[in-house]
């Protein structure tokens, strides 16, 4: 049992995966000596060498495009995108090549590629460093998308993602990189593509993932003080979605609030609301409410706390749901 940060969890997970399988290679900008701008790959190049921890030229399309070729040759590339806002130059390679290769080849060319993206805001950064692009990938058939929210998950989920033979967009909540948690490597992890009940409740259900899980749990605690019993689920997997626990919770509480940092329009909340309504139509006491970023570009950091969903906006939504 050791206390580690979420960032450290990814580092340890990467190390374990690289020790287990010599085909695992880490590639990206500044992942070598620097250990990445968030130090997530710290020490890996020293121990595994420049052939397995590759400082690449400064071009994201090149990173993903060469990762495709390495995967065809039997390697398992783990690509680091330095910040969420810099994944777009690689979008064509991700959407038209990585995502479609297995389908195009009818399984002959699997793409065991992990695309690590530190995502979300709240760190006082300049433009392009606080994006939440998950919906762009969850809408793309052929990709799988997961988001970790705590150190234990970051340690296990990165290893499970690397073991998967399908391409996975692995989202790391950068504002939570320094949050601590206790890791017991002897406790077996949940399956990668499963959501998790984090807190039981009876009045309303709050769904969140990545950085918003902590916010949702804080909101639930605050709600308890006001005598409201709020259930919280960490979705963990965004594509595929693990809806069974969500539907069960919905049937119990009848009221659901979905929270994410990404703009509300066509964010994950839209899909989740649509599915819940289809599945649990007669159980819903209120429409599924969505709390997310506004439909604007990410704002200057001095006002990002107004833009980002926080405890109060979650509680506000819970109250609006209860008012139905």
């Amino acid at each position, binding site marked *: 049992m050791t206390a580690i940060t979420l960032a450290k969890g990814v580092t340890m997970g990467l190390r374990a995966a690289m020790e287990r399988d010599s085909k695992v290679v880490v590639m990206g900008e500044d992942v070598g000596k620097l250990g990445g701008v968030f130090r997530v790959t710290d020490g890996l190049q020293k121990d595994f060498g420049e052939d397995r921890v590759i400082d690449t030229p400064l071009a994201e399309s090149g990173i993903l*495009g*060469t990762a495709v070729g390495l995967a065809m040759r039997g*390697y398992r590339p783990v690509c680091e995108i330095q910040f969420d806002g810099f994944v777009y130059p690689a979008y064509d*390679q991700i959407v038209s090549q990585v995502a479609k290769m297995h389908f195009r080849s009818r399984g002959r060319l699997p793409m065991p590629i992990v695309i690590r993206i530190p995502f979300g805001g709240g760190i006082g950064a300049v433009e392009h460093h606080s994006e939440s692009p998950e919906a762009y990938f969850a809408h793309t058939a052929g990709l799988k998308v997961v988001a970790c929210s705590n150190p234990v998950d970051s340690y296990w989920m990165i290893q499970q993602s690397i073991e998967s033979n*399908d391409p996975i967009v692995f989202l790391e909540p950068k504002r939570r990189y320094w949050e601590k948690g206790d890791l017991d490597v002897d406790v077996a992890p949940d399956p990668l593509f499963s959501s998790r009940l984090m807190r039981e409740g009876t009045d309303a259900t709050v769904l969140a993932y990545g950085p918003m899980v902590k916010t949702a749990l804080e909101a639930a605690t605050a709600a308890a003080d006001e005598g409201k019993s709020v259930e919280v689920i960490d979705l963990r997997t965004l594509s595929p979605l693990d809806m069974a626990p969500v539907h069960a919770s919905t049937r119990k509480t009848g009221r659901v609030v979905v929270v994410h940092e990404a703009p509300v329009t066509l964010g994950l909340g839209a899909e989740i609301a649509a599915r819940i309504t289809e599945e649990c139509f007669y159980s819903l006491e209120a429409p599924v409410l969505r709390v997310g970023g506004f439909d604007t570009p990410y704002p200057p950091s001095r006002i990002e706390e107004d833009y980002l969903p926080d405890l109060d906006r979650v509680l506000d939504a819970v109250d609006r749901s209860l008012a139905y």
Partner: protein
Amino acid sequence: MSSAGFGSGLDEVFGPDRGDGPELIQLLTPEGERVEHPEFAFDLGDEAILGFYRDLVMTRRIDTEATALQRQGELGIWASLLGQEAAQIGSGRAMRDQDYAFPTYREHGVAWCRGVDPLHLLGLFRGVDQGGWDPIADKFNLYTIVIGAQTLHATGYAMGLQRDGVIGTGDPDRDSAVIAYFGDGATSQGDVNEAFIWASVFNAPVVFFCQNNQWAISEPIERQTKIPLYQRALGFGFPGLRVDGNDVLAVHAVTQAALQRAREGSGPTFVEAFTYRMGAHTTSDDPTRYRVSGDLEHWKLKDPIERVRAYLSRGGVADDSYFAGVENEADELAARLRKGCLEMPDPSPLDIFGQVYDEITPELEAQRDQFAAYLASFEPADASADEGALR
């Protein structure tokens, strides 16, 4: 200040370029004469050339038959390689078994050299699948339609070869290289230039084989570059060469040298095969809207097959019976392809759900089951209605 201050020799390389400058490497003239080149020599005998002739004829016949099948509505579209046979056979035959090729959508001749059944090519353009061959077994990747994307895949694969230790060992059956095919238009894509950077920086064993057929659909080469394309490589720190793309001997010699250089660990090479797209861009295209027939006449005289035939017959290497034999073989192939194409079964719409992932998702399983139940609620009549859609 004088614009000489901006580096010497630029004026020479500027301006429209007819491709017959001194830099063009040629070993067999359009008239079928063997000529010498200071750097490159064709190191195989007439046996090999007889084989090349057969390859060229078979490839062209595949192309003609496919075009005919498209006209008759059996294929959705076809991208003809007419005029580019020598560039593809010469480079394709320069590969060793262990080398790996990354084609565009037009490399039917390379596919032939790799032993890919042409029926698979027809299947793709008919719309029954997206490439039925086994890219790993055939060491011939699936066709890539997004312009330029495959050049990065090729470079990444080459980086894999480096990590596998199959470069520069001196063992001819072990040392491997990658060849990436792309067109003149593709050189404008960011991906292709990023591939040049990766290959140069990592010294990757990859040959960038550009078939400059002078056109990107309706856009002439002037829309993509102001200087001869092979010179692009100099800006990235590796060698660039221009070879007569209609001269199968020169293409073979140059590509073999470039591949060998890669296998030895000396890094990437850019080979510009200077040729011409004799047909339309695809069967959907109408070149009369944008180019004059004069060019066509000029290039007809440089036909890649005629010059080989001229060489073989003049030297008495082959007689009419040989040529007739090849023709027969081509006819048989064409007949087999036509038959196979017409008999090709459509895929089952239910199969696609299982082809998206290595591990199917519960969501997709549910969609498949729902769709299966939905389909079951119809008459087979519906199926034939679908068929109609393609035509």
